[in-house]
């Protein structure tokens, strides 16, 4: 309401000065562009070029570090995108706040390549009208075999004094709290203040052991032997192992987060045809396979495994895990505005500790 109020006054007073002299590099209203907003290091850049070659549509590609950074930009209308790839709980939040529009699946024939089980698992989109799963995976521990001399099977290693200044934690509220809550045996969607406070104390206790709170940098730092242990998404494990064979990925026995990232079209998207064309392109078997070989995140596309030529990748347990052996995987849920605000505050308690 108030936004509207200020808006009308300002729009009037400023319209005159704005109309003059605003050169734009890309015209967002032209027909052959597509604005994509994806997480960092999450696509093979060649695929974007190939899409432009095949369709003549230019892809304006932006990256966000965390879901939390993506949300305010989209919600406020500060940046308008045609396709976004958030995680499960964030999609739930965007749906709750009416920011998304349904996908026209008839324009995405390759959608049939997506495994039914992944669509069923997309409980954040109960009617299966708004999303197309892109990647899925777990959160686990990546460690360097030459620096860690004990078996790693539990989150407890992240609280081991021996690895002071050698631990990398995720710099995102939900992922960091998921680690602590799971270690304590609670649900990672807990909104119970006592449980969250307990997790907060645990994270505060851990802080002096942590070298840095980072997101995408975990990958480069682990490859460069900068740290011994890092909390990382399963998809990065294969990539990092390829670069540095000393690295090993484990899913801790206490259980962890199983996540699905999916493509959505925001309400204010301006290039719907192009968005659907891009989604169809991404779901095409050869493209999905090429992308998988580059980013190594587990794909819900059922055609990919047969196409992968690299045997080690094809038989990788990390890329194609048998999740039936883990009984305590959990998916993030949107905690509601109140729950989220509380958790954000508690995360600052950790960061400023």
């Amino acid at each position, binding site marked *: 309401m108030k936004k509207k109020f200020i808006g009308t006054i300002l729009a009037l007073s400023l319209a005159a000065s704005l109309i003059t002299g605003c050169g734009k590099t890309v015209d967002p209203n032209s027909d052959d562009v597509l604005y994509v907003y994806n997480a960092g290091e999450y696509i093979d850049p060649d695929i974007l070029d190939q899409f432009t070659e095949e369709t003549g549509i230019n892809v304006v590609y932006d990256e966000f570090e965390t879901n939390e950074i993506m949300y305010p930009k989209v919600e406020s209308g500060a940046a308008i995108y045609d396709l976004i790839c958030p995680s499960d709980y964030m999609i739930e939040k965007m749906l709750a706040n009416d920011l998304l529009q349904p996908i026209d699946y008839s324009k995405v024939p390759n959608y049939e390549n997506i495994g039914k089980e992944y669509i069923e698992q997309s409980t954040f989109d109960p009617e299966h009208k708004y999303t197309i799963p892109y990647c899925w995976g777990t959160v686990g521990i990546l460690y360097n075999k030459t620096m860690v001399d004990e078996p790693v099977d539990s989150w407890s290693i992240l609280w081991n004094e021996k690895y002071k200044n050698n631990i990398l934690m995720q710099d995102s509220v939900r992922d960091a709290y998921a680690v602590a809550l799971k270690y304590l045996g609670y649900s990672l969607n807990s909104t119970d203040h006592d449980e969250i406070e307990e997790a907060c104390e645990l994270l505060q206790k851990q802080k002096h052991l*942590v*070298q840095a709170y980072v997101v995408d940098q975990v990958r480069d730092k682990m490859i*460069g032997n900068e740290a011994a242990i890092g909390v990382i998404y399963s998809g990065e494990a294969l990539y990092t192992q390829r670069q540095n064979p000393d690295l090993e990925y484990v899913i801790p026995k206490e259980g962890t987060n199983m996540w699905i990232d999916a493509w959505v079209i925001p309400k204010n998207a301006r290039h719907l045809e192009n968005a659907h064309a891009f989604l169809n392109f991404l779901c095409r078997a050869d493209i999905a396979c090429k992308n998988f070989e580059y980013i190594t995140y587990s794909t819900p596309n059922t055609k990919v495994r047969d196409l992968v030529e690299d045997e080690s990748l094809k038989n990788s347990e990390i890329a194609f895990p048998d999740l039936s052996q883990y009984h305590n995987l959990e998916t993030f849920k949107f905690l509601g505005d109140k729950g989220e605000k509380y958790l*954000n505050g508690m995360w*600052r308690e950790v960061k400023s500790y």
Partner: protein
Amino acid sequence: MSKKTKWLAMPYTIWGIGFIIIPLIIVLFYGFTDVSGHFTIEGIASIFTHVNLKALIVSMLLSFASTLVCLIMAYPLAYILAEVGRGKSSLLSLIFILPMWMNSLLRTIAWQNLLEKTGLINAFLSFCHLPTMMIINTPWAIVLGMVYDFLPFMILPIYNVLCKIDKDTINAARDLGANGWQTFWRVTWPLSLPGVISGITMVFVPSLTTFVISDILGGGKILLIGNIIEQLFTQDNDWNAGAGLSVVMMIFIIISIIITDKYDREDAGK
């Protein structure tokens, strides 16, 4: 010149009202309201929660430290440069200010490269069989980054003022029997104070409000008040609290400017 000339200032005045004054009013508006638009001082008062207060105190301490280090490092250098540079080309002093023109992010990244665990300094230390050091992601690294980024801002104004001091004043003090130290403390230092003060503001304000240096050199382990404001806007989507803290930050800047301005005036009064 004719009376009509003054209308030439109109475009800028309109621009300034539109892009300087109105935006600040919007910040004030959000700072003094809650999500539903009702008046509240909650946003401003949130500075007193212990997380924000701690961030503010840490920011103050780190910017005091970096300002002090900058002053200690810059003053002798400006003094030497002014002595050498008087009458000669200013090329020499330019060399010391040149890094200011280099992208400040890149300069901060340079230190990240030097300080990291596998960084160059540690590689060198372990090559010499010396113990390695871990100052990256500590407050020390942030102070270092601030000093490095803002040192030229301290050198430049002090140098400018020192250059303008009349040599005769110093010679007169000498003739009247003052020794080197006396001349410095009684003549040069008081005369250079305006430069020192503008140097202090030019280092203190950006240090107090930075979020980039703490982000790159602090490893996310140290929250400065700038980081909190940035996160409230870009991650938590809590504009009211963010605007409230921005207002508090502006108050601190105004206070520091009033203080330095007062010193400046007193000095001019003498």
